[in-house]
């Protein structure tokens, strides 16, 4: 319990910054919605003139009109997902590598705790932190739509379905970050690793939209949990969701095994 509490405390600042930024992004983008919607017909026409590939890359080709609330929201949520991906990957790469990078492992591991307890406490602390951010995402979604939605109706069920995927989406990046960090000798810079992971996933999904086919999509949780798909169809792309779940389980299990066996490097 003491490790868990200590870890949550160290995440505190980061949780606040990420949560407020995500909230800010949602409110800012949704505040433009009113002007979008008032010229709905014009807007749809304008977008038709853009190259199809560009629309696809930004998730605006789902058939949901960009002038409808959820059509517009799908586009925003892609940015929210990108933020959540970076945050989750940050924590994933950080949590098992920090003691070795900052050489505090000798302190923590010479205490009467098992590696098992250390990894579980650290994982739960990161997961708690992500869940707090997740709560802000829920509040931001409903809040911004309520404030700037202009009283237009939308499918609450579909929105809830989308928001429910955030936990899995976060776990994907958290667990993949963890397995990579324990598979390599040293994570020198967390941010470069997490940026590389989240942006490459984002780009895989964008490429998939442009090129078509599911091969590229299999790799990317941005495709597994594509906002436009869920908001339009009111259901999940089940085979893809299953892939995410498998990746999460395998990553967590192998991180656990590797961490228990790991030789902790010293300063020299």
């Amino acid at each position, binding site marked *: 319990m003491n490790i868990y509490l*200590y870890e949550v405390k160290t995440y505190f600042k980061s949780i606040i910054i990420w949560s407020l930024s995500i909230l800010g992004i949602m409110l800012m983008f949704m505040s433009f919605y009113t002007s979008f919607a008032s010229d709905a017909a014009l807007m749809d026409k304008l977008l038709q003139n853009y190259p199809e590939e560009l629309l696809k890359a930004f998730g605006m080709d789902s058939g949901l009109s960009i002038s409808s609330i959820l059509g517009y929201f799908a586009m925003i949520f892609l940015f929210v997902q990108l933020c959540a991906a970076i945050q989750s990957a940050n924590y994933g790469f950080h949590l098992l590598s920090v003691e070795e990078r*900052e050489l505090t492992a*000798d302190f923590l*591991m010479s205490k009467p705790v*098992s590696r098992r307890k250390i990894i579980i406490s650290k994982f739960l602390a990161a997961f708690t932190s992500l869940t707090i951010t997740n709560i802000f995402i829920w509040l931001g979604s409903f809040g911004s739509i309520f404030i700037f939605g202009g009283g237009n109706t939308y499918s609450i069920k579909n929105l809830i379905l989308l928001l429910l995927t955030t936990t899995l989406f976060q776990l994907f990046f958290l667990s993949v970050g963890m397995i990579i960090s324990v598979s390599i000798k040293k994570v020198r810079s967390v941010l470069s690793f997490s940026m590389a992971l989240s942006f490459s996933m984002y780009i895989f999904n964008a490429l998939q939209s442009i090129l078509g086919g599911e091969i590229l999509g299999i790799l990317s949780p941005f495709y597994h949990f594509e906002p436009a798909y869920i908001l339009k169809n009111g259901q999940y792309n089940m085979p893809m969701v299953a892939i995410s779940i498998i990746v999460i389980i395998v990553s967590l299990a192998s991180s656990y095994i590797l961490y228990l066996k790991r030789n902790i490097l010293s300063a020299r």
Partner: protein
Amino acid sequence: MNIIEINKLTKYYGKARGIIDVSFNVKKGEIFGFIGPNGAGKSTTIRTLLSLIYPTSGSAKIFGKHIIKDGPEIRKEIGYLPSEIFYYDKMKVKDLLKYSASFYKKDCTKRMYELADIMELDLTRRIEDLSYGNKKKVGIVQGLLHEPKLLMLDEPTSGLDPFMQKKFFDLVVEENKKGTTVLFSSHILAEVQQLCNRVAIIKEGSIVKIEDIKKLQEDHYKKIIIKGKDLDVKKFNIPEVKELVKNNNELSFFYNGDINKIIQTIGSGIIKDILILDPSLEEIFIHYYK
């Protein structure tokens, strides 16, 4: 009774040598010195005993329990001072020590303040603002606050000024009198001679010798360098003198015997300068443990 039993412990980092077939026992209540030059494998041995790294082969027991399987159980009674001290930089000293204490199921508050007082440690400062020596003090308090039965000190004196070093040695001796067993690693022979009952000497990953400190003190070598013109080499051809080297106007050798005798021998000639030194550990290895 043996507190530490090490049996043919071997550790390779990939292909690089860590330690090879290290075996020795540390008895209850003794201060056991572990001495060797840098990179000989002292830290590797200690970090293996703490399960920070896992042995390639061989095994070890502490308190009669298996170091890996019973690791968390064993570590309840171990105080460890790493050779390089690093702590969570953003924390205050007090918070770090409290965090450290929270791992032990007893109230360590009183002992924590006592130790901080002895080591003159300011508890209100941030770790990142501390000098190396002060961080070392944090390490000492952190390693001792739960009153462990076994202390593992990995080069504990580096970074401490002589005054603090003395206080620290007093502390170790005091703990030892209360029944604490100590494993004391160092590359400075004089330190070990001052504190320890027995020593293991490690070189290039292998134990060269395990010896009573009394035996080491009998062989009290001094390194003597004399400078002057027309030095008479023949005078120094006596059994107590070893490794005699003449170099222009300089004569150097190792001496083990009655110090008065050699002073008289030196005094019988005219010299410009004289140096009498404690031989370095490397020199002892080269000349003594050949």
